């Protein structure tokens, strides 16, 4: 539905970039934010939507997803991935390059962008590969990738293991103002590991991956960032030792940022069982790591929440734990998990939550959004924070069902998602949400 001119009246607007956190009206004209303020004037030709009890945020941006297209369409397609994104409250996603072929060439980037524009739901920001075929041997044509629309480079799924290659990548990207996103994990320390190294791994007889496998590479990348001036972003950070390294780097002024996933701030290795929906990389860590992440989310040393949405076909996950692929879906559970576990439990304020979900991802990726400042696109995530939800994997818009949260009951829901002023998602379980977009 096209909203030429609408005033959302009396909602709770949270926009940390403008220092807003309270009741306010929002006027949207031609897909852009026209005004934000108390008691905005309403004339006859303007539609007025009652926004009371809803929380309006600048649109959430998931800076770490796997859309699987091209090449693995049995897991997910760009169309189903962005449908899942908007249903989960995300107006934009940044998709990792480990498709088949790898997004190491402008032709692949262009194809991803073409398909995402055709889907007309969430914005899609492709992430290009650091090295050709993500093999770690030769830099990709980063300028071409940038020109085609890539917002960052990463060999996600694989770390950039060679320190010199990482150095060169960080040096090279300084010319294009884009970050290198690294899946930090020392391959030799990971070995054949499938879960966090600790008592639970011991009890289940599963091979462990210590948190230090991650942090040694985070420490390296922080140092290389200082050396080169290039921006490094630590993907799906999971270990307390890594957080310590990021904090030290930030204190020294290194251009280092990091993200964490909802499953790493909600679950620990104590939740592990022989169910491949609990298998992801990095693995569910120890309680001390989860607690460190909660502290980092609260004190600002963690920059963003990203889902690492990693869809897999049910057949691929219904096998022996050791042999199943790593990864779980996250787009359609992230907001409810974060509202329930972070906001309602007073780990973070709503305003800080919006920084983590919207403002900071926009800054890190250097993309528009992250604020409802007049003139910006009307990309908005509307929350119903008190709404009780039950996670039902069978209702996901994603093709995949690989979640450990099926059946969980949580407080806090996405009511609607707007991109360019269009309602790309309304939650049909919340009758009043529909009234936000319907003409009287």
């Amino acid at each position, binding site marked *: 539905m096209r909203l030429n001119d609408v005033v959302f009246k009396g909602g709770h607007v949270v926009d940390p970039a403008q220092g807003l956190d309270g009741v306010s009206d929002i006027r949207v004209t031609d897909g852009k934010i026209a005004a934000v303020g108390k008691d905005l004037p309403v004339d006859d030709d303007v539609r007025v939507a009652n926004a009371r009890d809803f929380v309006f945020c600048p649109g959430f941006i998931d800076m770490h997803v796997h859309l699987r297209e091209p090449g693995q369409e049995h897991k997910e397609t760009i169309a189903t991935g962005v449908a899942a994104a908007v249903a989960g409250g995300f107006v934009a996603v940044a998709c990792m390059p480990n498709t088949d072929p790898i997004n190491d060439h402008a032709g692949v980037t262009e194809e991803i962008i073409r398909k995402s524009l055709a889907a007309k739901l969430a914005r899609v920001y492709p992430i290009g590969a650091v090295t050709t075929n993500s093999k770690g041997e030769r830099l990709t044509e980063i300028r071409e990738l940038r020109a085609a629309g890539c917002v960052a480079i990463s060999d996600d799924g694989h770390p950039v293991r060679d320190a010199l290659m990482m150095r060169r990548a960080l040096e090279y990207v300084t010319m294009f103002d884009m970050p290198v996103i690294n899946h930090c994990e020392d391959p030799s320390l990971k070995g054949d590991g499938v879960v966090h190294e600790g008592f639970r791994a*011991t009890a289940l007889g599963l091979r462990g991956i210590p948190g230090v496998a991650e942090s040694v590479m985070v420490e390296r990348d922080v140092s290389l960032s200082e050396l080169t001036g290039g921006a490094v972003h630590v993907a799906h950070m999971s270990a307390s030792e890594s957080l310590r390294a990021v904090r030290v780097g930030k204190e020294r002024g290194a251009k280092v940022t990091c993200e964490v996933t909802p499953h790493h701030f909600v679950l620990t290795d104590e939740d592990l069982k022989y169910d491949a929906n609990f298998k992801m990389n990095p693995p569910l860590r120890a309680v001390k790591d989860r607690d460190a992440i909660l502290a980092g989310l609260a004190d600002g040393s963690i920059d963003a929440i990203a889902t690492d949405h990693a869809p897999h076909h049910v057949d691929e996950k219904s096998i022996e734990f050791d042999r199943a692929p790593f990864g779980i879906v996250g787009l359609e559970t992230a907001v409810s998990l974060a509202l329930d576990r972070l906001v309602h439990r007073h780990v973070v304020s709503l305003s800080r939550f919006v920084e983590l979900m919207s403002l900071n991802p926009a800054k890190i990726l250097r993309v528009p959004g992250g604020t409802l400042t007049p003139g910006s696109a009307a990309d908005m995530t509307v929350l119903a924070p008190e709404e009780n939800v039950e996670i039902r994997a069978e209702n996901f818009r994603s093709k995949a069902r690989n979640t450990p949260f099926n059946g969980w009951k949580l407080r806090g829901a996405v009511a609607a998602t707007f991109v360019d002023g269009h309602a790309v998602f309304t939650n049909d379980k919340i009758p009043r949400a529909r009234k936000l977009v319907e003409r009287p």
Partner: protein
Amino acid sequence: MNVSSRVSAETHDTMTAQRLRSKHLLSVSDLSPSEIGLIFDTADAMREIGTRRIKKVPALRGKTIVNLFFEPSTRTRMSFEIAEKRLSADTLNVSGDTLSIVKGETLVDTAKNLEAMAPDIIVFRHAASGASHLLADICAARVINAGDGLHEHPTQALLDAFTIREHKSTFKGLKVTIVGDLLHSRVLRSNIFLLRSLGADVWVCAPATLMLSGVEKFGVHATTSIEEAIEDADVVMPLRMQLERMRGHFVPSLREYFEMFGITARRLRRAKSDVIVMHPGPMNRGVEIASDVADGPASVILEQVSNGVAVRMAVLYLLAGIELAGEEF
């Protein structure tokens, strides 16, 4: 045969259960002390069958048992097969090289196909930890975990404890020392659960590279000192150095391992005078155990093998017995 009449009312350390609650035997941690007592008492009765001229009873006549071994095994598979035949079950061996898995079939599909042929019990060995749980979720048949990856091997632990029970008056306070490749041992977990459940004082000893993360949370003493571990021990159990699993850099050489951790007659003098030495087999002589110990008076290694048949007969009988309850024999 009426086993219950043979089972003595008096048990070793605990009250005896009348039946097993669990449908499957996947982990020793599923067994209560009284269920363990029931298995031991039943195994006592079963052992007698092996001494008869005709070593066969009709207890499991008409029952189909599949020995599904996705990993090579000689003694465990033989032991189960002998146990099954002594109970008159119809048995079928399916092993690694005959499996459809090499043709790309998943474990779930292999299990569903087996299930369609309605076996009563599946004895299952697999290289992945938790694989027997996956199988048990799918199959109506009872599943006996005969070793899953690095996780558990419950019947081995049961036969080990059954053997200890023959030689020691009580498990309470017994110092049981397990030495060796803890990292790659599925026998270890099952033994720890079982021996702790029966009240033994369990010590584990290994080079630091083969020590398990957080193992002391099982309620055991962990040390890298073989002398400390073996001091006043009642039972010493070296584990096999699983050379085929050593894909890392765990010990520099087997010679150095034997020097530091091998169970030798000289080291064994630190243990109690009536110490027994056990080994889950197969042994690497001169690596984890010296030949004069393996073949010496303290060794009960071959008793373990004989007891294995009786204990597996007991487990098979009791698991099948759930559905047979109330029937006459």
